[in-house]
């Protein structure tokens, strides 16, 4: 279970002004559940994801997972996966090496990691593109590669930062069901950041809105 306790984070503007971005924020998310996180741009949604992933440190408060305090744990040791808005695929690696990246980092032999990546890509309907460069793929294909890369290491928690915002409306709609099915099959906890109310309600068992630096439960 993911637990956030009294997370506070300030944001320093280039001019020197300081704004409170997150204030005494609390959250409990059991395994297998998806929490939708709503809020306007600049409300601190992405910062919160980065704090959970360990990419940013909170100014105050604690992050716990399964009862263990992981606030000071570096991101590579948390075994979470974060999927970015623009997918952040590595342009110098081909599709299979992008997907195999996390496995290699866990110490798996490259050939084995690649074989696993290829198998994963086949399940994702991308078997024909394993050796393609990522920029040769369409937006929808890139999104699937990013999801495959996030899921292949079987993370304990999946963090999604507006995973559909880079796609057009039609594609977004058709991919959402497939995406949800894959996530549900993996059985992990998911924090899904979006500013689309419809999307939030269709994916999350719990829904929160980030208001004034804190989370307000919507459903």
């Amino acid at each position: 279970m993911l637990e956030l306790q009294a997370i506070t984070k300030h944001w320093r503007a280039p001019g020197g002004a300081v704004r409170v971005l997150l204030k005494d924020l609390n959250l409990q998310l059991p395994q297998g559940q998806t929490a939708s996180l709503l809020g306007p741009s600049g409300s601190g949604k992405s910062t919160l994801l980065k704090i959970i992933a360990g990419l940013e440190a909170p100014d105050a408060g604690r992050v716990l997972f399964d009862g263990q305090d992981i606030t000071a744990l570096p991101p590579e040791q948390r075994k979470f996966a974060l999927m970015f808005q623009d997918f952040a695929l590595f342009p110098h690696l081909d599709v299979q090496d992008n997907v195999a990246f996390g496995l290699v980092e866990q110490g798996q032999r490259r050939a084995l990691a690649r074989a696993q990546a290829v198998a994963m890509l086949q399940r994702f309907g991308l078997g024909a593109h394993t050796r393609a460069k990522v920029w040769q793929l369409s937006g929808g294909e890139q999104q699937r590669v990013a999801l495959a890369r996030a899921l292949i290491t079987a993370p304990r928690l999946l963090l999604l930062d507006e995973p559909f915002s880079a796609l057009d409306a039609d594609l977004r709609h058709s991919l959402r069901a497939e995406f949800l099915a894959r996530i549900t099959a993996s059985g992990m906890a998911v924090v899904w950041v979006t500013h689309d109310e419809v999307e939030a309600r269709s994916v999350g068992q719990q829904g929160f809105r980030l208001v004034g630096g804190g989370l307000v439960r919507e459903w």
Partner: protein
Amino acid sequence: MLVAPVLRLMGEALSGDAGSALGTAADGLGGSAWLQPWLDPYLRWRLLWSALQAALTCGVVLLLGVPVAWVLARYEFVGRRWVLRALMLPFVVPTLVAAIGVLALWGPQGLWAQAGGAPLQDTPFLLLYGNVFFNLCVLVRSAIDALEQVSAARLAAARTLGATPWRAFWRIEWPAILPWLMSALCLVFLFCFAGFGMALVLGGQEYATVEVEIYTLVAYELQLGAASVLALWTLSITGACALFYSILERGLATPLRSDRIARRVPRGTAQWLAVAGALAVLLLFCLAPIAAIVLRAAVAGGQSWAVLWEPETLQALVNTLRFSGAALLLATALGLCHALATHHWAALRALAFLPLVVSPVLVAFGLLLLYPGWTASVPLLIAAYALLAYPFVAKSVASGLDGLPANLQAAARSLGASPWRAFWRVTWPLLLPALRRGMAFAAATAVGEFAVTLFLSRPEWATLSTLIYQHLSRPGAANLDAALVLACALMALALALFLLIEWPGTDPADPEEHHA
């Protein structure tokens, strides 16, 4: 290596020696010796001419460069990518080689004179043409980058609101590219004002620049004080220019626009004429001097080519490779460290540009004053080479780092990579193309280095550059032919090194490269 010599230069200039060194004209002026260059008509002309020729060059490259850039940015035609690559050529050609190219074309024994053209020797034309050769491409490349950032949506909006193509250019494109043009012109002014090799060979008695005057005062007249005062003024002007440039540059760091204007195939006579015109301008100003060297060297005959096998030449080649190789290693290490260390500290980053502001002549002169006992030592020479070459590595790697999306590193970390592993597996491979590019420019700079070698080296350490200059200084057609052949060889060496390091089409992360 840089700050101390400059401080020493300033100290020399502000001390009392300067006044006496300037000779009788300074007598009775007391503390105002540092104003002397402005009171002496001869030195005043040197300073004013240096600024004037730089300003004239700016005007010419602006008038020629913007239309050429617009054609290259907006039209798609066969060979366009090769034209863009060829725009790099003047950056790679050593100064002295370019100067010889201008002479081979327009000089007293050049192709123009042979064709019966009016003599151009002792006119400012040669120097201005040489300046345009080097700087037209600076402006064109910068303008192309700027034009590619213009928003297609805004241009489309202007057209739907009734603007003609010309009005749309004037009201939408021109304001958008103006900051880039200003920044490029600032660089052009800096390069021309502080230029040495070109002015030394092409300026003659009348149109030499202040850098040449400083060299003459130090090397031939031993008037160190007077030279320091001139150097101080040069430094103030280039410093002001560089400051202005850095202010302009800061405003340019906007991300690439996603709605780029698509290039179109030219249609109709007028559009094809525009393409032909742009290519003709580039041919005349950027390729002709290089072609002239090759042509003149080719017809020079076997006797002239024998210069390549003379022991003097082979020694110069060995020296060139030895000094440049050592300098390249040092410059790469320095440049990498500088770029990585200053990635998050913008104020320090500007320091990498100091060697560009302080011209090679001033660096060499300052070192001469500061370490008189070391002037003929290989380590000092190599350090000076590296100092002049490393900004290319630092600048290239720094912009490479800026271009990396921050979330790639974050993605690697969230996938289980430690900071070092994330650097090694993601940042480093993506930085390599930028590093290679910077090293290529650094290598080309080191191989063609001229000013510092002229100041600091011993006769037995002659490099290909200084050997060319020696041949050029001797009278007779045979020496000119030998200089042409050597220039050909030096150009080939610089080009080969450049291509060896930056082989076209090997950038793994450049979608343009693979799509086209």
